[in-house]
């Protein structure tokens, strides 16, 4: 780590001229630099107030909240199902994963987690893993672009575009997917979707290999990221980091392994870990996580109950009329279904009183929902534990001692999303 005291004047002539004394005066002067909220390297609306001594950062004060929309307040005023579109807008780089996380939290409160049909579980795992690839591709592309490797960004965005096409055919929306429902998913997989995913998986590994050749042994990349922004193990735990940032520091924590949900128990995957905890390690962890996601997706496509096109009609929703909307034709012909439809639409799913916390391994880290219910169709309190918010809190500890140009590398490697941080 650089310090100001290292400065020395190498020119003998200047030394004789008394410039050393002048320099000593200069060392006392610090500059406050405002970075953001509108800055390309802050990936959204993060503002950091930096105190600089020359090039060296002596203090950093992150200022968040520019994207605060009051999601938690809004959640208290609508039914559980109505809140699903708001979860798209948390981590807007991985909306499918947020949908899955939120649905699982409400289902935990309802006591449904063991009653989810297997096909629904596989579909949700595929959604979460596709979202992970998509989010990591963007995080990695933006990180590399900030550090000066523009080509990577173009490569990863080509692949993300394909994921958006898959999202579109699955959910009807490219960005704001709102795909899950309490107790299931909005619709079954469309015909030909599984084949399209397989084709995408074959293409993405080729592209990932190309990105790897561009970066992993690239001298400039290694110089800019290695031993920069080192987060030791104990600091990472103390600051509550999660996801690739925690694993980059060598902490073996993945909620898919430690608190398995959905069908992750039946699937094989490895959890990559870093050894140093610097920006380079976090890059390597994300790179490998994408490969593991590809591996998971292949297994899901092989094992999904009902097969790709589901000719046997495997259910994708919980068989409970008080939770899942009945099919339209039954609403128009059956009294019971009409009542269920009416109750669900006007009052929402009737949730028992109680409280649960559910943490989901999102691309950015642990996205948790703490739901406190007093019964009825709306939560009494819904707290979102957002990984980006917690991951950013380490900045004021991490930045001092680095030079200004390391800021973009550190920010890129932490891979945060302000929509989720500010909620």
């Amino acid at each position, binding site marked *: 780590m650089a310090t100001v005291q290292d400065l020395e004047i190498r020119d003998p002539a200047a030394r004789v001229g008394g410039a050393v004394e002048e320099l000593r005066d200069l060392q006392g002067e610090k500059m406050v630099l405002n970075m953001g909220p509108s800055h390309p390297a802050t990936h959204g609306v993060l503002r950091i107030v930096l105190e600089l001594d020359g090039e060296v950062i002596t203090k950093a004060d992150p200022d968040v909240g520019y994207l605060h929309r009051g999601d938690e*307040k809004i959640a208290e005023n609508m039914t559980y199902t109505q809140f699903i579109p708001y979860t798209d807008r948390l981590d807007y780089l991985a909306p499918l994963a947020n949908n899955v996380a939120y649905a699982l939290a409400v289902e935990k409160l309802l*006591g449904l987690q063991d009653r989810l049909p297997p096909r629904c579980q596989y579909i949700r795992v595929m959604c979460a893993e596709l979202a992970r690839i998509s989010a990591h591709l963007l995080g990695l592309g933006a990180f590399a672009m900030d550090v000066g490797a523009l080509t990577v960004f173009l490569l990863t965005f080509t692949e993300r575009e394909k994921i958006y096409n898959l999202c579109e055919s699955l959910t009807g929306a490219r960005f704001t997917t709102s795909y899950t429902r309490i107790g299931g998913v909005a619709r079954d997989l469309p015909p030909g979707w599984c084949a399209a995913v397989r084709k995408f998986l074959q293409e993405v590994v080729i592209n990932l290999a190309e990105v790897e050749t561009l970066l992993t042994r690239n001298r400039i990349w290694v110089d800019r990221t290695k031993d920069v922004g080192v987060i030791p193990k104990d600091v990472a*735990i103390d600051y*509550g980091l999660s996801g690739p940032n925690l694993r980059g520091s060598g902490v073996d924590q993945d909620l898919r392994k430690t608190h398995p949900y959905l069908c992750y128990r039946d699937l094989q995957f490895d959890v990559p870990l870093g050894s140093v905890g610097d920006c380079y390690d976090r890059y390597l962890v994300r790179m490998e996580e994408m490969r593991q996601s590809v591996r998971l997706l292949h297994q899901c496509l092989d094992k999904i109950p009902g097969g790709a096109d589901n000719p046997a009609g495997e259910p994708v929703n919980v068989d409970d009329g008080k939770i899942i909307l009945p099919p339209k034709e039954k609403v128009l012909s059956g009294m019971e279904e009409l009542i269920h439809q009416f109750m669900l639409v006007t009052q929402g799913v009737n949730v028992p009183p*109680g*409280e649960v*916390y559910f943490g989901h391994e999102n691309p950015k880290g642990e996205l948790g929902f703490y739901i406190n219910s007093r019964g009825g169709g709306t939560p009494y309190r819904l*707290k979102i534990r957002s990984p980006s*918010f917690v991951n950013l809190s380490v900045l004021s500890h991490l930045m001092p001692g680095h030079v200004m140009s390391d800021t973009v590398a550190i920010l890129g490697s932490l891979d945060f999303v302000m929509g989720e941080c500010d909620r």
Partner: protein
Amino acid sequence: MSALEFAQKIKARFGDLVSEPAEFRGEITLRLADAQQIFELCDFARRQLSFDYLVDISSLDNYGEDPRWTVVYHLRRLANGFELRVKTDVSEEKSELPSVIGVWRTANWHEREIYDMMGIRFSGHPDLRRILMWEGYPYFPLRKDFPLAGKPTDLPGVAFTKPAPLEGGPFVTVPGGKDAIAREPRVRTPED
């Protein structure tokens, strides 16, 4: 060893101050009677029982009840993934409890957020400023008596001086009114 046994150890250490562990959906909840003891409890859980990871701190506004506030801590033991929830009540008159930054540094931003949203203060917090709302904002928006549409205020340039554009809630339109453009509140000019 299970999460329940760790909860029993905390119960044994603090005696009557801590309630019997309650279980719901596989989660263990402990209730601490005296909020002033929260630092001691967390410190004990961290140092003696290795609950090294603070997942989250959350807050509840039990509006109309006494005590008004509940602060909820989610603890995790990374070695085996055991989780524990600790809840403690804070009265409205006091609205203050000890900070746990000395136990986990991640508590810093969580506590700032609770102060910002609910107005509960944490004694011993080195930097208790607003975090999501701006400095000088006069209200605590997650309180139950704060309306969804926001509040007008007389303070110029600090908070809204006019009703929020979505007053009445984001999805409330006037039924049977004029055409859709007139009903849509966002396209109205302030003079209307």
